[in-house]
């Protein structure tokens, strides 16, 4: 493993331990960055990178604290930094505080749009410009958002203690929702312009939560959902850069190790015996993944799960997806009726809605109506990969009115 990767892997544990010990996110981040630079310049690689970084960073913080305490007095020589004895005498100097830090970054008192950003910045060490791209906002806005969130953690009296278990429900909901937003930003962008490293970080964070909360079925469900989405990343674009819909993807390009990991999480979640929207969404994605093994999709199961999801967490995009599944089980007319029943104007003008309608019209042989819907979708500011895909559909419709799928 290369050193940069090892440093990235060590980061969540080291930062969490420092942040909780010193109750200061900025101090923890700065000390970790200094220690990482020291490690890169260090002649030999230590056996345990995380421990080494923790000891060095902690000493940096202590030095800084002592310096502040001695304001105005002449600086003493600070202790030598690489005191390896510290590391070898302690079996495991780092307490695992990662869960605490996740709960702090995702505190419900922080603005929802700042929570994941803060977690990605502090826990995963993503650069602010990268996070800004993930959330489709400017770097300045994102910087301000993260700075505000950090200030609120510092000044609002947010505790650095792990909340009592009874309070986990609300926190966990906030944690999962923020991760879901990050996931949505990373994966529903069909443009394929998302930095793969970024979706990898979101996946790491989701896996981290599944690892830390193995008894929480919805946490496992969300991790499974994110990993299933990632498993199809390599199949989402064709050679020309056009989006490839799930139904036409080459399943040989799917990441079966990721699918297996997700399946194990879902199995574990099922044992807890309490369902929830994330488990259902992941189960839908797993049903799609099974196509690689079964050669076909169990659309009846998918439609039934969308019905369940509508009961749990009714939402416009879920309603659109449910209609698409309905087409496979009850036909295009039933699906069109379901789409017509959706009232929110914002959804009725959204691309997934228009494209779904186009699909139903073309199934029903109404190619003029289908072309109209596709043109309306293309009139929007469409990312390149999706534009290529929709343009191709439009020309197919012109040649063969019932070919759209």
């Amino acid at each position, binding site marked *: 493993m290369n050193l940069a990767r090892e440093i990235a892997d060590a980061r969540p544990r080291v930062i969490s331990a420092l942040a909780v010990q010193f109750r200061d996110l900025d101090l923890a981040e700065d000390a970790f960055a200094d220690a990482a630079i020291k490690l890169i310049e260090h002649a030999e690689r230590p056996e345990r990178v995380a421990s080494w970084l923790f000891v060095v960073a902690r000493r940096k913080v202590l030095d800084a604290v002592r310096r502040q305490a001695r304001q105005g007095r002449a600086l003493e020589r600070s202790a030598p930094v690489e005191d390896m004895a510290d590391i070898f005498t302690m079996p495991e100097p780092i307490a695992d505080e990662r869960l605490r830090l996740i709960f702090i970054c995702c*505190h419900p*008192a922080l603005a929802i749009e700042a929570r994941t950003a803060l977690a990605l910045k502090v826990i995963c060490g993503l650069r602010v410009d990268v996070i800004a791209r993930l959330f489709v906002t400017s770097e300045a806005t994102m910087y301000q958002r993260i700075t505000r969130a950090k200030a609120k953690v510092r*000044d*609002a*009296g*947010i*505790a650095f*203690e792990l*909340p009592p278990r009874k*309070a986990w429900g609300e926190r966990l909901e906030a944690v999962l929702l923020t991760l879901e937003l990050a996931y949505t930003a990373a994966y529903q962008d069909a443009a394929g312009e998302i930095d793969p490293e970024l979706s990898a970080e979101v996946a790491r964070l989701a896996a981290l939560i599944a690892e830390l909360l193995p008894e929480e079925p919805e946490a496992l469900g969300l991790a499974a959902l994110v990993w299933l989405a990632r498993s199809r990343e390599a199949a989402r674009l064709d050679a020309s850069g056009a989006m490839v819909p799930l139904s036409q993807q080459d399943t040989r390009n799917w990441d079966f190790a990721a699918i297996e990991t997700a399946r194990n999480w879902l199995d574990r979640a099922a044992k807890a015996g309490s369902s929830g929207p994330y488990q259902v969404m992941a189960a839908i994605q797993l049903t799609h993944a099974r196509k690689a093994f079964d050669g076909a999709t169990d659309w009846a199961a998918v439609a039934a799960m969308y019905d369940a999801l509508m009961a749990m967490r009714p939402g416009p995009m879920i309603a659109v997806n449910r209609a698409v599944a309905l087409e496979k089980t009850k036909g295009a007319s039933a699906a069109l009726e379901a789409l017509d029943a959706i009232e929110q104007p914002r959804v009725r003008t959204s691309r997934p809605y228009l494209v779904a309608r186009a699909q139903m019209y073309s199934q029903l042989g109404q190619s003029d109506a289908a072309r109209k819907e596709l043109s309306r979708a293309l009139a929007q500011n469409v990312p390149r990969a999706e534009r290529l895909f929709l343009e191709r559909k439009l020309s197919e419709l012109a040649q063969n009115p019932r070919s759209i799928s």
Partner: protein
Amino acid sequence: MQFMLLINEDESIYDGDEGAKRMEETLAGHMALAKAWAEKGVAFSGERLKLGSTATTIRWDAGTHTLHDGPFAETHEELGGFYIIDVASLDDALDWARQIPVPGKGAVEVRPIWPMEG
């Protein structure tokens, strides 16, 4: 640390006969809360304010000021009272703040207080 709990309520819910009864219930809720704090050893203080219509506001703009009849905030939800409590963290403060009775529309703002220097 100390937190201020600012209670903003739509006062119209306390109008009329029904409203008077509701006010009694709300006050009983406040009494119960004060009792809980006393039992738990939470240091607290607080006041109930008269109606927003009794307020007078001094508005400043670049060194000059004007007087206005009525509260500062032009909303239906008036500041009706406040507590200051001394607890360990924001979450503790929020737990208590959730127990403040607000029968109609309203909001409870929770804000940390600057500690006194020294």
